[in-house]
């Protein structure tokens, strides 16, 4: 889960890292009030997930509350990488003396956290990593260590030139950021820029936090940050415990598959043979008869969809149960589009028997490619 800036700043602030004074606003009037409360030169920042907000004109400097109102009015309702601006963060403008960079990222291959520290903050860190890699200090952390080795951050910030009180403050930020990384089960916690102000304070001017969805069950404080998809079928699928992904508005093939790998391979094959997927639905493991029926019925509601490939295995799932689910969908819904089922695995004979009663084509052997070709030929008929 990718947190919005305002959520990330809350989390970072709660971890004891200084953040600028800020208020969230849901409309221009609230933005005006927020600027009034802050009562300093401020910044109005669109709350959208994709980067590049500055270039897109979604971050505006404002001198007073009236300007905050008009800037917010400009920003609200704009689209950025497909997302509409529905919230803005109004934040005090910092008097920047220097911009630093610090993050903790999970190195997936080494299976350990890595702390990245640089005095070149405020810009795209990946560009720095390419142009002057020596400007970024990498500190690998042993995930079994109970404590944050404070001196490592003093060493790292010292190497990039920090001294005195700022060295200690920046080290403290790194230390707290690592604790936060563990606390929220993060993939990434990043502060860019970490600002040293003219007054010598060290403040997180921006914050990016990505947490592991699998860990949310143990983070009640983050669950409220989970935003349901705005797509009605994605919401419906999520309630049914399966995962529906809308692919293309020009798509006409619906994919119901078990497992991410097979889902993707099926989608690849649809494209490969000239089809366009409208959506795919991954059943995951342990699907029930009702869950299977619901999944099919959700896929049937997909706009523009003119045929469905059901590509499943009885492994962690069971063919008989899945076939019964398909049967149930046929009883409960009015199915007008061609459906091809490729199914084998545990209880395949029982599953096939159920499907044969429905008189729909079953690929018992053969590849995904065969099933797709058959479906596409039926759609074109």
């Amino acid at each position: 889960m990718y947190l919005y800036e305002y959520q990330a700043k809350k989390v970072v602030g709660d971890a004891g890292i200084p953040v600028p004074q800020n208020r969230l606003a849901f409309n221009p009037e609230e933005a005006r009030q927020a600027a009034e409360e802050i009562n300093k030169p401020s910044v109005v920042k669109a709350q959208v997930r994709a980067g590049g907000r500055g270039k897109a004109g979604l971050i505006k400097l404002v001198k007073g509350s009236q300007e905050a109102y008009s800037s917010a009015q400009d920003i609200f309702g704009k689209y950025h990488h497909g997302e509409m601006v529905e919230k803005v963060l109004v934040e005090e403008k910092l008097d920047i003396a220097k911009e630093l960079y610090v993050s903790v990222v999970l190195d997936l291959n080494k299976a350990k956290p890595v702390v990245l520290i640089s005095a070149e903050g405020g810009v795209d860190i990946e560009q720095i990593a390419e142009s002057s890699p020596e400007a970024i200090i990498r500190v690998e952390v042993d995930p079994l260590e109970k404590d944050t080795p404070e001196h490592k951050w003093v060493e790292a910030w010292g190497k990039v030139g920090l001294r005195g009180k700022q060295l200690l403050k920046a080290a403290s930020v790194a230390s707290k950021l690592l604790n936060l990384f563990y606390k929220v089960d993060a993939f990434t916690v990043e502060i860019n820029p970490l600002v040293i102000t003219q007054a010598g304070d060290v403040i997180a001017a921006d914050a990016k936090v990505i947490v592991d969805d699998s860990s949310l069950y143990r983070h009640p404080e983050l669950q409220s940050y989970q935003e349901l998809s705005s797509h009605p079928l994605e919401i419906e699928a999520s309630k049914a415990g399966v995962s529906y992904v809308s692919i293309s508005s020009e798509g006409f093939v619906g994919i119901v598959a078990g497992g991410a790998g097979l889902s993707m391979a099926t989608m690849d094959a649809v494209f490969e043979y000239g089809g366009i997927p409208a959506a795919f639905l991954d059943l995951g493991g342990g699907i029930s008869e009702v869950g299977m029926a619901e999944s099919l019925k959700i896929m049937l509601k997909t706009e523009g969809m003119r045929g469905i490939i059901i590509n499943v295995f009885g492994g962690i799932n069971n063919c008989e149960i899945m076939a019964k689910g398909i049967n149930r969908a046929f009883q409960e819904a009015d199915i007008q589009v061609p459906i091809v089922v490729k199914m084998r695995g545990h209880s395949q004979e029982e599953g096939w028997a159920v499907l044969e009663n429905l008189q729909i084509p079953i690929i018992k052997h053969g590849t995904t490619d065969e099933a797709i070709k058959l479906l596409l030929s039926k759609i074109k008929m």
Partner: protein
Amino acid sequence: MSIIIDQNTNVIVQGMTGTQGSYHTQKMLEYGVKVVAGVTPGRGGTVIHGVPVYDTVKEAVQKFKVDLAMIMVPAPFVYAAAIESIDNKVPTILILTEHVPVHDTMRIMALAKRNGVRVIGPNTMGIIAPGKAKAGVMPVFLYGNGGKVTVVSRSGTLCHESASNLMYRGIGVNLVMGIGGDPIIGTSFTDALKLLKDDEETKAVILIGEIGGSREEEAAEYLKSVDYPKKVFAFIAGRYSPPGKKMGHAGAIIEKGVGSASAKLEKLAEAGVVITGSIEDLIKKVEDWHNGRYPEELAKEA
């Protein structure tokens, strides 16, 4: 003898008392697997399909030589189950559970490394040496009875898909390993390739990857760095996946262009791997190689 699992491998199942644990234990017993014990804290003394269940792994290892622990407990309990088997020095730990918190996996891996324990998974269908033994949820009749090809895959269902289609064309597989679909996994493609390098039964290796991460690129680097003695084929699922969409499991995210299918295939091709564009293409190319190398065997089995 196969890598990791064969007829002589003693297996314990952590979570045997659950619905899935019980069902797949039965399937493994039917396949002749030596499932010697189950472990579920608080359920010690129970017997499932004739197999004794203990409260602790320690009791199991005191009674039996345990080679492999298969973990099928719910995600919040995987960490405790895994460190228990690590602590008891079970040589191989296979974690089937999906949605394990990634920080838990991270710590499991660090502890496993410290204790010299191999971890496979999490989020895998398991491992099968067809005709010999299996630990996992795969339907065995899709896997045949052995052969010369080894399949290593992030996706479980693509294991079923590729192994069964090879079988239908008369090509046998000697080992199929689901390495797991999670962001952090215990045994990577590279680890698997290293294990298989000197395995006499393996003549060719099929790598089935996915978009996201850099495990396939890492494997390509490894293959480039050694004179790898086996034929290697690769398929990468998700080359048409729209960027930024999360395709089911967490491993399969294309982020910032890193880990795209084309980048992976390019690197693998550079390393001498036969790259393929679809499952059909994969099966076809393996078939051609097989026909060229082992025509008599194909004729015999067909």
